[in-house]
């Protein structure tokens, strides 16, 4: 497994391989066939599979989501792409009231093998309406699965899993991660739901990092190391169904949990994870918990505020440090440029 490719390429390859394997897989969404090809993730596929299987759409998120549902009722396996998750707010009726419910409310007579890809992103000056990560909405409603892969490996494996799944899957991509590179096997493989990944072993505190915040947690782990603390880092990969078991087992060991979401905290994935761990470990292990995520405000575009809006490796390390020490220590590690493997330049 020494081939290294980018997240973008991993998504593209997964799509290509599944479209090649299964003629019922089709791909559409605004701009999937345009020169930018959704940051490259759909590059070349319109040419290879033709305009019937790969096509751009009108700006009609509501109807096009319904169209995807209709296609999947007819036995196709649509992949519907949205360049920003914010735009899914136009498709909520079809996603929540139909996609999540069809198998059940039709008593199992139908099913919807549907994948909805949507991108989340750090604002870089885009502000309020181009920066949201609303995965908790989809975790809340029974009937949808949610994947939020961090690495190119998981990006490919989760997407193939999602395409082959007979029920609707929300596939969440963070734009910063698109430029991440990593080892990815060429043959197809799946990363199924139900198993979180322990990305670094440690004994003092459990860091759960969702989507892009996984990267910041990995950096925080290194900062903490320099502060003498061994953090265990967990990537849930799939948010629904969520592998609460793996997280709780880690916290049973460390006694401390810091969940860092790439989203708001109230009724968010971090609230869910804290609640689950509390439920699972009550009576068995006293725990210390901390949630981190977007500041509880609208995302501001100006950098002087945006920097405060997001958690980052240093603020995460500082919070985890306090969790371990048991009180506010005011420790904030010096910024280390060697941890900045990933460059991000907006706007995207």
């Amino acid at each position, binding site marked *: 497994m020494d081939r290294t490719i980018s997240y973008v390429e991993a998504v593209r390859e997964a799509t290509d391989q599944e479209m090649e394997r299964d003629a019922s897989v089709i791909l559409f969404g605004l701009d999937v066939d345009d020169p930018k090809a959704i940051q490259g993730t759909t590059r070349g596929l319109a040419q290879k599979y033709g305009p*019937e299987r790969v096509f751009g759409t*009108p700006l009609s998120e509501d109807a096009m989501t319904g*169209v995807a549902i209709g296609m999947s009722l007819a036995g196709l396996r649509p992949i519907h792409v949205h360049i920003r998750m914010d735009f899914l707010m136009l498709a909520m009726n079809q996603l929540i*009231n139909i996609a999540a419910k069809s198998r059940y409310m039709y008593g199992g*007579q139908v099913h919807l093998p549907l994948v909805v890809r949507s991108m989340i992103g750090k604002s870089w000056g885009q502000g309020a309406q181009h920066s949201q990560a609303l995965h908790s909405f989809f975790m809340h409603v029974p009937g949808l699965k949610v994947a939020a892969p961090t690495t190119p490996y998981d990006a490919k494996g989760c997407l193939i899993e999602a395409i082959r799944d007979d029920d609707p899957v929300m596939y969440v991509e963070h734009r910063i991660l698109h430029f991440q590179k990593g080892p990815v096997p060429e043959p197809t493989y799946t990363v199924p739901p139900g198993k979180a990944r322990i990305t670094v072993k440690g004994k003092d505190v459990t860091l759960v990092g969702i989507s892009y915040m996984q990267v910041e947690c990995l950096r925080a782990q290194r900062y903490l190391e320099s502060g003498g603390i061994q953090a265990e880092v967990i990537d849930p990969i799939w948010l629904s169904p969520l592998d609460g078991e793996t997280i709780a087992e880690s916290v049973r060991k460390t006694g401390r949990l810091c969940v860092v979401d790439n989203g708001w905290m109230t009724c968010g994935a971090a609230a869910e994870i804290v609640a689950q761990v509390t439920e699972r470990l009550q009576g068995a292990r006293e725990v210390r918990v901390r949630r981190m995520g977007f500041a509880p405000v609208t995302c501001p575009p100006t950098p002087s505020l945006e920097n405060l809006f997001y958690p980052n490796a240093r603020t995460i390390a500082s919070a985890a440090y306090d969790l371990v020490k048991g009180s506010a220590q005011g420790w904030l590690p010096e910024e280390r440029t060697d941890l900045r493997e990933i460059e991000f330049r907006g706007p995207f």
Partner: protein
Amino acid sequence: MHDRFYRSLYRIRRVEEEIIRVYPTDKIKSPVHLSIGQEAVSVGVCEALRADDVVFGSYRSHAVYLAKGGDLKKMIAELYGKATGCAKGKAGSMHLVDAAHGVMGASAVVGTTIPHAAGYAYALKLRRKDSVVVSFFGDGGADEGVFYESLNFAALKKLPMIFICENNSYAIHTHQLCRQPTANIAERARVFGVPAERIEDDVLRVHERVGAAVKALRAGEPGPFFFECLTYRWKEHVGPNDDFHLGYRTREEADPWMKNDQVKRLAGLLEADQRRRIESEVEAEIQAAFAFAEESPFPDGSELFTDMFK
């Protein structure tokens, strides 16, 4: 042909009359939106379809479910909330489904199945099938943005589908002209480049015009087609009763529609004994269906957790 039409019309009318009769006993476990008075649309359209054609509807879908060949026993059992219902009691009256007969779904949220029909038609076209898809919705559905988005997409992709707007002039108690500045739904469709036509409440005319569209689509002519079918709901919006006392409409308004009753009209086109034979067969079928529902068990508690995922 008239016998087939009559059988279908009479069957729908009588099933719903039985629902009205049974409703006060509380045996029916979900709200019912009756199609009485509107049967001609479903029958006229569905008599032009094949078993492998597909329909989508709304919460008011008893008529289209039955006209398209949906299983009557399973429908009544579904209304009774029984395990033998078409969706094992998980649908109720508002989400009737019979995939084997091309009844692919009905939604309680207005307008929401219109794009499903377009998506299904896209799949048929991609696979070079000659089946067609029909989307049934009300004049209220034509208020919703998804209606226009779906029309635009269907026209853009020339999909093998037929839009059937059952215009009964009301959304619940609100008249079309309190919701739309002009009563011109067919014209609204035409502006997307879609052949669109308004049809009076006439089952034979509906059948003829829709039949021609179906034929064109099967022959590979570009779709979609659009029909605004004028019709009238006799009963209250939801439930088994009349509602002229509410004051939002008058009996006088209803009168011409009731006089034009297509069930009676078709009855008149048959020989007396042919008609009686049909009627007695249908009555027996209905009795059997209600008995079936009655005798069927409720779903077991363990069913709560099935059908969520594969």
